[in-house]
């Protein structure tokens, strides 16, 4: 009896069809999965000290010897200590460290155990070439095409940033901002050279 009474007072209830409910839940779960994947991807972009650095290929600026630029693969440099410097011609702090980087490179070049790579970040080629000429930079430099290399290191890249990788391909040091001297660079690289 009381059930009948309750039914009479309640408004007529129209339930949402089951297939619509399933569709909505599947859609919501799908959206959450997509967001989780995107979050994971964005976190994967940041390389931490101790991590093995993901392989990449740098295409250097063309010159007389390499009219189409030179392809340098990070994995081909395994066994060497690698310094990767992100720079741009519009970046004033980059100008501050450019002579020190070049001096450091020249001190290691003959030994053949250290590689320097300059990655030109979000720059225009004529200005980048002027920058290289201005500081007489002799180690390989190339544009970060599609910002793919910088994204693999740091999704919030600012320049200058420098990453130093040991002989085994593991990241050992991150420098955010410019180096202040040649000695500062050598203090990091020399122990890695000793570590055979």
């Amino acid at each position, binding site marked *: 009896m009381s059930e009948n009474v309750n039914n009479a007072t309640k408004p007529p209830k129209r339930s949402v069809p089951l297939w619509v409910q399933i569709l909505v839940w599947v859609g919501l779960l799908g959206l959450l999965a997509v967001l989780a994947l995107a979050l994971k991807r964005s976190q994967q972009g940041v390389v931490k000290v101790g991590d093995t650095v993901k392989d990449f290929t740098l295409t250097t600026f063309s010159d007389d010897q390499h009219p189409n630029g030179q392809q340098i693969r990070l994995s081909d440099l395994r066994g060497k200590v690698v310094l990767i410097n992100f720079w741009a011609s519009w970046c004033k702090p980059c100008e501050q460290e450019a002579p020190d980087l070049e001096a450091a490179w020249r001190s290691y070049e003959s030994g053949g155990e250290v590689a320097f790579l300059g990655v030109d970040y979000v720059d225009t080629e004529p200005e980048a070439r002027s920058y290289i000429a201005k500081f007489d930079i002799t180690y390989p430099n190339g544009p970060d095409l*599609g910002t793919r290399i910088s994204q693999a290191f740091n999704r919030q890249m600012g320049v200058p940033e420098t990453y130093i990788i040991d002989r085994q391909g593991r990241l050992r040091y991150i420098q955010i901002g410019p180096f202040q001297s040649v000695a500062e660079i050598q203090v990091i690289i020399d122990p890695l050279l000793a570590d055979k």
Partner: protein
Amino acid sequence: MESFPKKVSRVTYRVSRFTFYVLFLLLALASAKTASAQQPTPSDDEVNAIARQLYCPVCENTPLDVCPTQACAQWRDLIRQMLAEGKSADEIKQYFVENYGARVLSEPPRTGLNWLVYILPPVAFLAGAYILYRAFRSWRALGKQASAQEGSEVPLAGDEYVARLEEELRKRE
């Protein structure tokens, strides 16, 4: 009857006039070709029309046409240079995508997960509209039912229950 030298001078005159016209025509054509080969320097408006469709990754959320940094100024100069070379807006944008990635575009390319950006907002809007429609319909139905109950002479089950309850209470008193 005309004398021979007079005839010669008229012919010479006609030939020289014809040569003059031909030379004039050739000169006009040459100058037109030179003018078309040299693109006029693109105006700021032309550069900004493309720049506002691009974002420099260094200055996120600032369109290239209003970004004050040196990096963006260099990009605008590059656009101006490419326009002067006769490149189209699409070719310029393609160059920027190839060199700096698709994230420089103000509108994400319609590929892969980017489709969600285009699909989700209208789907959410339509779903919201549908929910509102259903809610309004049920409210209207409730309103109609309430007014029907007020006007109805047939005693409702609820009234019967209240009457019985009151009767029981009276009995207890």
